[in-house]
């Protein structure tokens, strides 16, 4: 018998009696977690799947985005007949702590001051995001997750789940992620943050109170980051040196289609994302180093995760979190004696392939989750 719990999600509130204790030592006494669910929890509560979203993602995995009106960001993976199927799985996705789609973040009102947190919001980390997700999972009455699944920053949260709550996981899927941020990763994020902070409308993070938005800075941050999500061949194939109009402008308009595309990416991003959230979440990514927190040995992070079935996936043309990073995760999982599978998916679409229709991604996910579901006794 199926039991429906919050079939479309909502917001869960945690008060000062259940503070979120952060790695930095600070705590959030007022935490709201916005989440979406798809499907229904089965009677023995064994079919719950948590999806962890990426840097600029949110909880709207497979349903229309309330701001943009676009379909969910992972309809290739979540939906009827997809690897994660609401007919079979109870799928949960929550907006991360520090985010701007309903979960407490720098743009939220601090109940203690009645003003937006702004830079008074504490620095958050990937482990903090995961702890908040665990609080949500608890609140939904779920003891163990059939799977925790995520790509990019979501994949890092998956690894953190395996390190912090292995006994609550049956399986884990980590796509195009890394066990730590590299110098290059940090460098690109720093470009984005500097672009935001250089915008005169940023106002030391106090823009909300002053009635402005650092849209130009945030758009530039998005443009720089967006390049890292694509591959050189994909950019070349899509745009080459094609012009927007006939002939050059002999000025600084967007002559090339690639310029126009990036400007569009930047401009549409600012409609749905908050600049301070971008600062905080990129910081959380930069601070991520799973091995460092475990005596410098990544395998130690997975010492308690021997009972978890892992699936690690990477893309050949991803230069943001390249295959070598996924391999280091797999090596550590093997060294820890975990049950790990790994596929490097051949594609020229770069990091963005996570969100695109990649047949091998879909068959690998379907195979892994179906086989796990059989062992778990899911119908």
């Amino acid at each position, binding site marked *: 018998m199926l039991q429906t719990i919050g079939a479309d999600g909502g917001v869960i509130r945690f008060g000062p009696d259940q503070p979120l204790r952060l790695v930095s030592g600070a705590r959030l006494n007022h935490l709201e977690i916005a989440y979406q669910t798809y499907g229904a929890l089965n009677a023995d509560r064994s079919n719950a799947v948590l999806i962890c979203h990426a840097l600029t993602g949110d909880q709207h995995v497979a349903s229309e985005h309330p701001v943009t009106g676009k379909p969910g960001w992972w309809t290739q993976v979540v939906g009827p007949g997809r690897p994660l199927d609401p007919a079979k799985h109870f799928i949960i996705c929550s907006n991360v702590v520090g985010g701007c789609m309903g979960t407490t973040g720098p743009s939220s009102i601090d109940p203690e001051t009645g003003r937006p947190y702004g830079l008074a919001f504490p620095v958050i980390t990937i482990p903090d995001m995961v702890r908040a997700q665990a609080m949500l999972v608890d609140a939904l009455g779920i003891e163990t997750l059939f799977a925790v699944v995520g790509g990019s920053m979501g994949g890092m949260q998956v690894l953190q789940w395996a390190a912090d709550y292995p006994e609550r996981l049956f399986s884990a899927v980590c796509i195009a992620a890394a066990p730590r941020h590299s110098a290059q990763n940090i460098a690109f994020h720093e470009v984005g943050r500097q672009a935001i902070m250089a915008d005169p409308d940023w106002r030391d993070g106090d823009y909300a109170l002053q009635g402005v938005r650092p849209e130009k800075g945030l758009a530039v941050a998005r443009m720089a980051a967006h390049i890292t999500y694509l591959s050189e061949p994909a950019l070349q194939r899509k745009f080459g040196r094609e012009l927007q109009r006939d002939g050059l402008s002999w000025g600084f308009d967007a002559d090339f289609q690639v310029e126009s595309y990036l400007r569009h990416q930047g401009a549409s991003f600012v409609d749905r994302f908050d600049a301070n959230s971008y600062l905080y979440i990129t910081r959380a990514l930069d601070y991520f180093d799973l091995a460092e927190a475990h005596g410098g040995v990544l395998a130690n992070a997975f010492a308690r995760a021997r009972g978890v079935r892992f699936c690690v996936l990477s893309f050949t043309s991803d230069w943001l979190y390249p295959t070598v990073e996924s391999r280091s995760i797999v090596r550590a999982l*093997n060294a820890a*004696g975990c049950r*790990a*599978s*790994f596929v*490097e998916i051949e594609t020229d679409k770069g990091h963005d392939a996570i969100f695109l229709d990649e047949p091998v991604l879909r068959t*690998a996910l379907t*195979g*892994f989750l179906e*086989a796990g579901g059989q062992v778990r006794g899911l119908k």
Partner: protein
Amino acid sequence: MSRSREDFREILRLVRPGSRVLDIGCGEGALLDLLAREKDVDGRGLEISPAGVAACLARGLAVVQGDADRDLADFPTRGFDYAILSQTLQAVREPRTVLNELLRIAERAIVSVPNFGHWRVRLALLATGRMPMTGVLAEPWWSTPNIHLCTVRDLTALCDDLGIRIEAASALADGRPARPIDPSREVENWRAEQALFLLSRPGQAAPAEVAPPTDDLFGR
């Protein structure tokens, strides 16, 4: 190089029930599946093709995409009881390194190779003066993946060189049951079409307890 039923059957006989097995070049996971069902092993695989790994995932197997020459270093020391390298040693770039790696990763290695010393191969070369193409060596020289073909004597000598002990050896031929052999006997180097070795490093492994040969696993 396809992996024969005789190969599987002999491996199944050699592997201790409930052991930890790494199958290198596991393809779509047929052997791992069989070992899990028949011998209750805790199996892992290494496979070079993404399609092969995806097929293994669908079977519920834990398989890592990678290549024997490059990625064995990712596996921890003595994480397995057996490392299986079936019909692949002749196709790797560094057979010596790979053999040493197998016995770093596992207590025992099970290695099978086509025997280039088989009489039919020798005769083909003698008679035609061209690279032999036989049942086991089916591809012409310019497209074969086999870059390091060897004979039973060659492999025996290499194991000697590397201080590796041959605990057991069998001759394999299509359609016939495996036959235990003494690989140091020159006549076996003529007779064996393929050879399968159970290897260990002296001082690292207790003597193997091998189940007696059976004939009924494939319902014959």
